[in-house]
């Protein structure tokens, strides 16, 4: 146990004092050797009380100007989504670019893109929890919120792709008077319905269970009786009882243990939509791991984008430190290499399988009319992350921000490459064609970002963006403990 005077929690004040490696104290180990101490998760010598103040304060006052500007912008984009969808429903699918032979266009591209974004949130909250990665505490709340909102965006696309979205409820098996006409459980598309709805509901549950203690903190800080009452109801009257914590911790572990295989299953099943077909370029056993790793890759890039903005706007630099960002940059480097490996494997298998259709589709992918999209994908996903081999760039905010955005662009184009290049030239040259995105393809994509950012901005406005009860658990109690009460000081 470190004493107060030598605790790093008391002496590391900001990012400039963090190195990203352990602090070595020569000769301080129990047997006279060197002692290595992990750097603190929270800088600035914060106290438990400061955590609440720093994280809750901005939800308790009238939002700042920058929030209103961002919210106005997001709402405008959401309006674009609304108008585009109304046009789509009124006129029909003809206003977007999908046509024979590219019958899966941006809707499926966007669907896979958004579901992939969501995966990082579950990975951070569940997988890193099982691995006892304590740095997750600073980012898991907002990453999980990101998951929920990304799944909400993703959910739109298969439904509008149906053509008659008002019959979307036909996707679920329920007793009906049409035969009964049931859905076909042999279809990967029906697996998708169950995978996506389960993923959405379980992510929501996991996120909400994590929120309970923090909602009670917000309640105890509240001064207005209505606010107190609302947050008390939302937290189910949480008091912090250790008899409740006992079940809570057990359930949280169970949720993490179920969410971990769930997150892998969801993108696996999304990849089955492609892999169980017989299209060259889609019919590949590498698809499930390739999709899952790509999802984690793109999701972490989105988390970095959001965290870089959030930590500076809400002044959370003491909680989301450079060490956190560097850890995420390492994940991006690792998953980026795996994605690159998957791209190369696809090419190798196309040649090694000896299938001429497979060989053609991959030559066409990289050097055909859509070669430009393959070039964007490969540059952004494989070459750009290589800069994270250098520590200087892993710890540089501008580099992180730009690289993360490029990765997201690259990952959108990865799905574009998979969907469009496989479809536009299939077995018969007589049925070849090109795919042109119309104004509405772009406006629906932009509008989905509007929905995402509207939801995210409402989240940062009303709820604690960092899991306070978890951050407190990784602080040094000797430093973070409450100072004397006014009565104590008087006595």
């Amino acid at each position, binding site marked *: 146990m470190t004493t107060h005077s030598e605790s790093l929690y008391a002496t590391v004040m900001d990012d400039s004092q963090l190195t990203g490696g352990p602090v070595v104290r020569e000769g301080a180990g129990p047997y006279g050797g060197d002692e290595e101490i992990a750097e603190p998760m929270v800088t600035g010598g914060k106290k*438990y*009380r400061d955590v*609440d103040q720093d994280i809750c304060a901005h939800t308790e006052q009238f939002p700042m100007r920058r929030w209103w500007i961002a919210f106005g912008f997001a709402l405008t984009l959401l309006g674009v989504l609304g108008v585009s969808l109304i046009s789509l429903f009124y006129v029909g699918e003809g206003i977007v670019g999908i046509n024979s032979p590219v019958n899966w266009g941006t809707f499926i591209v966007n669907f896979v893109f958004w579901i992939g974004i969501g995966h990082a949130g579950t990975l951070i909250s569940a997988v890193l929890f099982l691995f006892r990665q304590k740095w997750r505490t600073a980012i898991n709340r907002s990453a999980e919120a990101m998951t929920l909102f990304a799944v909400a965006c993703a959910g739109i696309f298969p439904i509008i792709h149906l053509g008659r979205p008002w019959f979307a409820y036909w996707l679920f098996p329920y007793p009906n008077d049409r*035969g*009964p006409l*049931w859905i*076909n*459980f*042999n279809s990967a598309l029906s*697996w998708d319905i*169950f*995978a996506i709805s*389960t993923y959405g*509901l379980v992510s929501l*549950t*996991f996120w*909400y*269970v994590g929120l*309970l*203690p923090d909602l*009670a903190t917000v*309640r*105890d*800080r509240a001064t207005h009786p209505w606010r*107190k009452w609302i947050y008390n109801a939302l937290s*189910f*009257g*949480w*008091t*912090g*009882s*250790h*008899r*409740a*914590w*006992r*079940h*809570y*911790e*057990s*359930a949280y572990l*169970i*949720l993490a243990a*179920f*969410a971990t*295989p*769930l997150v892998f*299953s969801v993108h696996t*099943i999304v990849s089955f939509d492609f892999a169980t077909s017989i299209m060259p370029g889609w019919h590949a056993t590498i698809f499930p791991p390739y999709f899952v790793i790509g999802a984690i890759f793109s999701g972490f890039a989105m988390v970095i984008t959001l965290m870089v903005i959030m930590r500076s706007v809400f002044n959370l630099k003491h909680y989301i430190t450079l060490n956190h960002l560097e850890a995420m940059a390492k994940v991006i480097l690792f998953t980026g290499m795996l994605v690159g490996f998957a791209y190369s494997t696809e090419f190798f298998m196309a040649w090694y399988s000896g299938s001429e259709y497979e060989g053609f589709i991959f030559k066409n992918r990289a050097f055909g009319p859509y070669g430009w999209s393959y070039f964007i994908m490969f540059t952004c996903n494989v070459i750009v992350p290589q800069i994270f081999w250098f520590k200087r760039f892993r710890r540089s905010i501008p580099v992180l921000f730009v690289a993360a955005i490029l990765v997201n662009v690259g990952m959108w184009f990865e799905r574009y490459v998979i969907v469009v290049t496989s479809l536009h030239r299939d077995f018969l040259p007589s049925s070849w064609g090109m795919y042109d995105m119309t104004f509405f393809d772009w406006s629906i994509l932009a509008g989905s970002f509007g929905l995402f950012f509207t939801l995210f901005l409402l989240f940062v406005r009303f709820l604690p963006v960092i899991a*306070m*009860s978890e951050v*407190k658990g990784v602080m040094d*109690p*000797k430093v973070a*403990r*409450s100072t004397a*009460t006014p*009565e*104590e000081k008087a*006595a």
Partner: protein
Amino acid sequence: MSFPKSSKGVLGCFFEPEDALRAARKVRDSKYTHFDFLTPFPIHGMEEAMGQKASWIPWVSAGLAFTGILTAQAMMNYIMVVDWPMNFGGKPHAAWPSFIPITFELMVLFAAIGSAIVAIVAGKRDTVPQPPPLLIKTGATVDRFVVWISATDPKFADEPTVDFIKSLGAKEVRLVDERAGVAATGGDHA
């Protein structure tokens, strides 16, 4: 365990989790049984220090997971084999490999959501009567580690219980009585 309703009791504050752990061992070995520790985050080793058994939630989860598996299998086999058998490319009606993804998803759905609901309900029922959160600021969601002995405890008596909690080294020991409001007894005894 279930307890009669009450919001009367005595609470005292600690400022460090280690102090709360030490106190918990003393309370566990005392005559009091209706006690609790209210903390801003779970303290490692507290279950053992309070003399609690491990949570039974994992058994509930296992049962729910099994229910999910059975539900999915029953639903798909009934639909695909019994109610409306259809020929899809000559494949068998009970094509079990293609039932696996949905079976897995329903297992996770039942187990995850069910466990969360059961844990929240159990956290309310399987605990001693708590100080009313809207009336009493315990600080236990901020930076206090609070020991609480409910008035429902058979050995509870106002003054001796207050003295007992003070003897644990707790600060700001208070007798909480909803009917009489909050009575601070003695203030700080460092």
